[in-house]
């Protein structure tokens, strides 16, 4: 089989992995070729609108597991291929020097055993780093059940590593991925968290005077991914689980992947089901509220409301449920309260705080500052004046916001650009935020 065929098959097999970010590590060219930019760099956008920044491929799609939801499961009728470590390393270098990519995202099906596959992945990464002198970005997938020693070796070679949670509950994992165990997933995750904490990459404070260790372990941290819509969990369960992962495992980011039916099975939604893209979008919005806006999962969704409103941004939905918190005076409220106003983002909230140190923020300034005024005006006071339509009652307010076209906007895809903007220096920030 030629290289072209292999690449086609192994990219097809990897495309359902949502992560493609390259942010979180700043590194000059310490090898012979490559560097990494903390803001992350997107190189292209595919026809589905998702960014391409890494060469995202599988080492192999030959699999001994039979996970129901997976296109590469043992009983699936797809073409099979495997890369040789040398072959893939060379391909990545040739792509990299043409600036097609920012680095490599290496995942794999389980060929033989987790360790056997991981060994080959490790070999490929080692070739890249040591033989080719590659100093660009590497994201490596950890296969559940890989030995601690191998995980450690991979972590020393990669910038970011991830173990996929796959399904949002133990029960679904048991039903749909019987060969994967919770321990197989959470033990590696715990090991990575502990190693990172140990190296003071996350948590705690760096002691001054202690010389840093030369070797770095996954400097861009760990992420994970779960599939949305293949199993019956509610949005509340999913958001709660994400929150737990951020708190307990210091995960950098939880990715969601709308389930795209791959085959007919009594355990899965029918192949005619549309992928739940809007649900995925709302979950990402909720995820942003957790990570950047100071919300807790219980605030976003409670026992009585286990699903996110498909027509409204979860932040608006929260604000409508809490009329007692509004209106908020733009010129007085602390940053945390500004961040809770619908239509005010992290960037515009900081700009408000910056400007009002020197000059009052007037209503006409808000648009220039980047606030989405048609959304925000119902929830704010500006220099003591209110600009909304006079109602704080949940249902009329909801109708007003829906009519203003602020909730059910066109479905957005997974957008790494947005994530990037959070870490970019001001001069780099583009049309996002």
């Amino acid at each position: 089989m030629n290289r072209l065929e292999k690449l086609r098959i192994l990219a097809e097999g990897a495309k359902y992995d949502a992560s493609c970010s390259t942010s979180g590590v700043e590194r000059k060219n310490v090898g012979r070729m490559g560097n990494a930019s903390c803001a992350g760099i997107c190189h292209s956008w595919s026809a589905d609108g998702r960014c391409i920044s890494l060469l995202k491929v599988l080492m192999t799609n030959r699999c001994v597991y039979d996970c129901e939801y997976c296109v590469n499961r043992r009983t699936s009728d797809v073409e099979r291929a495997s890369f040789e470590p040398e072959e893939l390393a060379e391909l990545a270098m040739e792509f990299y020097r043409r600036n097609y990519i920012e680095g490599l995202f290496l995942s794999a099906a389980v060929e033989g055993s987790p360790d056997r596959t991981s060994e080959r992945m490790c070999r490929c990464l080692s070739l890249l780093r040591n033989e080719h002198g590659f100093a660009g970005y590497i994201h490596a997938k950890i296969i559940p059940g890989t030995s601690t020693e191998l995980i450690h070796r991979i972590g020393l070679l990669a910038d970011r590593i991830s173990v996929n949670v796959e399904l949002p509950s133990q029960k679904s994992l048991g039903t749909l991925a019987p060969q994967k165990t919770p321990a197989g997933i959470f033990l590696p995750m715990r090991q990575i968290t502990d190693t990172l904490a140990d190296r003071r990459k996350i948590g705690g404070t760096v002691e001054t005077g202690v010389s840093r260790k030369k070797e770095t372990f996954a400097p861009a941290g760990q992420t994970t991914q779960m599939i949305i819509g293949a199993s019956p969990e509610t949005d509340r369960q999913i958001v709660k689980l994400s929150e737990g992962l951020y708190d307990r495992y210091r995960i950098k980011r939880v990715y969601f992947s709308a389930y795209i039916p791959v085959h007919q099975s009594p355990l899965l939604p029918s192949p005619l089901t549309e992928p739940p893209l809007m649900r995925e979008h709302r979950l990402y919005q909720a995820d942003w509220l957790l990570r950047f806006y100071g919300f807790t999962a219980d605030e976003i969704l409670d026992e009585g409301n286990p699903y996110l409103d498909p027509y409204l941004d979860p932040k608006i939905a929260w604000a409508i449920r809490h009329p007692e918190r509004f209106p908020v005076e733009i010129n007085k409220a602390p940053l945390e309260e500004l961040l809770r106003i619908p239509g005010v983002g992290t960037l515009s909230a900081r700009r408000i705080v910056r400007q009002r140190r020197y000059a009052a923020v007037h209503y006409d300034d808000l648009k220039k500052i980047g606030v989405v005024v048609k959304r925000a005006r119902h929830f704010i006071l500006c220099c003591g004046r209110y600009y909304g339509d006079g109602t704080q009652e949940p249902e009329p307010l909801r109708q007003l916001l829906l009519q203003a076209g602020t909730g059910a906007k066109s479905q957005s895809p997974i957008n790494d650009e947005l994530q990037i903007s959070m870490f970019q220096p001001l001069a780099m920030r583009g049309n996002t935020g």
Partner: protein
Amino acid sequence: MIDYLHDGSFEGFLTCVFLHYYEEPAAGIYAGKVYQPSLLHAWRLVKTDQEKAERVYDAISQKISMSALRRCYHLHLSDSSDRYNVAFHYLVMGFRLGPRVGSLHGDPIVHEAQRLARKVSFEAHRLTGLVRFSVIAGDLGQEAEEILYARLEPDHDVLELLGDHFADRFRNAPFLLHDVKRKKALIARNGEWIIMTMKDEEIPAVGADEKEYRRLWKVYYDSIAIKERTNPSCQKRMMPVRYWKHLTELTELPEDE
């Protein structure tokens, strides 16, 4: 009140700012090439004066801020015909208010300067990803060697903003970024780079290897898209169509001779 016209260099612009304060107040500042004479004001062609420019340069960094200086420089690189006036008004305000000018996001002058400067730095950032190199046999040095060659047509004159990033990344590989629109090129080797003028000369035909990798990249590009999620409007929003003609993945492979 007078319109100052300069030679289009950043120093030329700074010289005009100097004259505004020490000779005659400026009604506007323009690059001479694009100036449309107005009935309202007289105009004066300004000769760039390095010393005056340096005094303004230092004054901006000391009395306003480094970020104001950087912002003005980015405005200078912008393709907006009004760029020097935007920068000028921002500086006048900056000299009056000091460093806090950068925080007045709601002010129309500040907002316009920040908006325009951001477009420039954003395009530079965007191009760090969208540049596509071809490996060609070059003759930059004495012996024949491979060089990386890329064509681009940015909206703004951002070539020099790409220098440090790529010179570090490809420290051991000589490369050439060719701004076809402005007929100039950034040439780098061993981590150092310079900008030169460059006409649209014949570029050597690409070899079999180069074609092979382009083909591989196109196959990858098509395979990675999830067809159930096809979303061309999003794709175009993130990667505007004007950039497509220099993207390997979205152009045809050259014909075989």
